[in-house]
């Protein structure tokens, strides 16, 4: 019957259309980003000289490579300021910076009470004057932290940073910091004031990596560490609660020059969602794979991207 046939066709088409719509609606937006969505993008990717900064940049690198872009790897640059300068001078295209660092060191601000979001907004706005673009920030906050061994925490009942100063006996309090922390305004000097650390306390200056081992084997009671470092968990250390807010927020975000942002808008759009996927736990795990298990940065980056379906 003719009416029946038209009905069948109509239903079939509608079904097909519905299926098509459903199909496109279910797949992630990035599926529209094909293997060559970043073709023609040519970047020099830098990073600071510690594991977290390096692996974050490797994630960007592996993503860009997987989508047809070209990358020159210039990760592992010594020093925050050196890395930033490399970008503003055009030697690298982008790197991951921390809101706290930009606020205190580059923008020479002193107010450390701001919450992470407010801080981020202010930093990104201020950096427009420097022609620097900030992509969205991570959910993790890799601020400076102090670590003690679980044994010390139990022995002296240390639950907060104040406990460290008041409950650990003076002759047992040995603080270990690394030389950049000792020289930064948002470093040791400020902390001593905020928490009334006596001037007579012993402070040792060590290489960053050495601090973890030295804290674990007792040569330091209190070691300066980073909140998302994988070695904290691996070496049986714990981070007490920051009861008096001192350390500013250090959320990470990709920073790049306005020029690059303008040149590759498709890149900015593609990279924007990445940071939101990295929590404190995720970051610590990625760090531990490199620092504790000895895996290679590019491998770890690739496998994580694959696990969240971004590859």
């Amino acid at each position, binding site marked *: 019957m003719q009416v029946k046939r038209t009905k069948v066709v109509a239903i079939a088409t509608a079904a097909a259309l519905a299926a098509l719509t459903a199909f496109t609606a279910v797949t992630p937006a990035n599926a529209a980003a094909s293997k060559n969505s970043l073709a023609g993008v040519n970047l020099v990717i830098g990073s600071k000289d510690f594991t977290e900064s390096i692996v974050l940049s490797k994630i960007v690198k592996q993503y860009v490579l997987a989508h047809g872009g070209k990358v020159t790897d210039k990760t592992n640059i010594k020093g925050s300021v050196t890395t930033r300068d490399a970008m503003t001078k055009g030697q690298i295209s982008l790197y991951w910076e921390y809101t706290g660092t930009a606020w205190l060191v580059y923008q*020479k601000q002193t107010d450390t009470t701001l919450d992470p979001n407010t801080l981020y907004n202010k930093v990104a706005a201020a950096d427009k004057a420097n022609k620097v673009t900030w992509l969205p920030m991570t959910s993790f906050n890799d601020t400076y932290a102090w670590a003690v061994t679980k044994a010390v925490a139990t022995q002296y009942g240390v639950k907060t940073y104040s406990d460290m100063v008041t409950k650990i006996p003076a002759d047992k309090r040995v603080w270990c910091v690394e030389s950049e922390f000792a*020289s930064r305004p948002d470093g040791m000097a400020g902390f001593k004031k905020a928490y009334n650390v006596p001037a007579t306390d012993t402070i*040792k200056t*060590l290489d960053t990596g*050495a601090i973890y081992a030295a804290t674990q084997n007792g040569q330091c009671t209190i070691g300066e560490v980073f909140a998302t470092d994988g070695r904290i968990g691996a070496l049986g250390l714990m981070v007490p609660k920051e009861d008096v807010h001192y350390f500013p927020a250090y959320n990470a975000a990709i920073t790049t020059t306005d020029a690059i942002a303008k040149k590759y808008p498709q890149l900015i759009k593609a990279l924007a969602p990445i940071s939101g996927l990295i929590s404190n736990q995720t970051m610590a795990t990625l760090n531990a794979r490199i620092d504790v298990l000895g895996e290679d940065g590019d491998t770890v980056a690739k496998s994580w991207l694959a696990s969240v379906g971004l590859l």
Partner: protein
Amino acid sequence: MSKKLEPQLAAGSVYSQSARLIFKRNRSLLIQPILILVILTLMLTYIHNHKLDIIEKVTINPQFIFKAIEDHVFLSFSAAVIILAIAIPGGILFTRPKMKRFTPIALALANIGQAFPAVGLLILAGINFGFGKPVAIGTFAAFGTLPILRNTIVGLQEIDPFIVESAMGMGMTPRQALRKIELPLAVPVILAGVRTTLILTVGVATLGVFVNGGGLGMLIIPGLKLNRQIVLLTGGMLTIIVAFTMDWLARLAEEFLRPRGI
């Protein structure tokens, strides 16, 4: 040959130099301290003219700098003393006829100390034996032993064997020959080695910052990491000044101790 007689020496006396004669003979000994003072003045002028920000003020202040220099001199000097205490007797020992066959082994062991990457060895030592000046000094000594051990051995081997044979033929005991003949003749080479050691230890002591040893690395590394030129340059220039000063003092000692007639 000069007609004028040199000052009289007591019979058997080997060393005795007049300060005037030394400086006359070697102009550069006067120039070196002047150069050091020039660099120092330039550095102080540079600091004075530069407005320091809060990061720079942490390290560029008299208290911090004097402590850094004091620690640095202590580290390098102590390491140098240990090196010399091992390498000079060691060099003498390994040139004695009975010990000669062990010389290659000794040199190989000393070589190992040089082959290790410095920071790695320092941190390894710190983790195992405790961070701080003693371990830093010990590790620096391990790096520096080879050049001066080799120097002492070469210095002693280079002495004309017939001079030594003469000495033995006169009836000196081996110890007397060592003391009166071999060592005085090896002094120039040994002292050159001392100078090398001091410069080396001054350089390597900048790594003390990584193991709680202090020193001028406390300026250089933060200066580098925070990209503060003035801090980096101050640390660097002070290291050079310390090295030049130690070198100058060593050269003075060399001139006073060099036996005449060589």
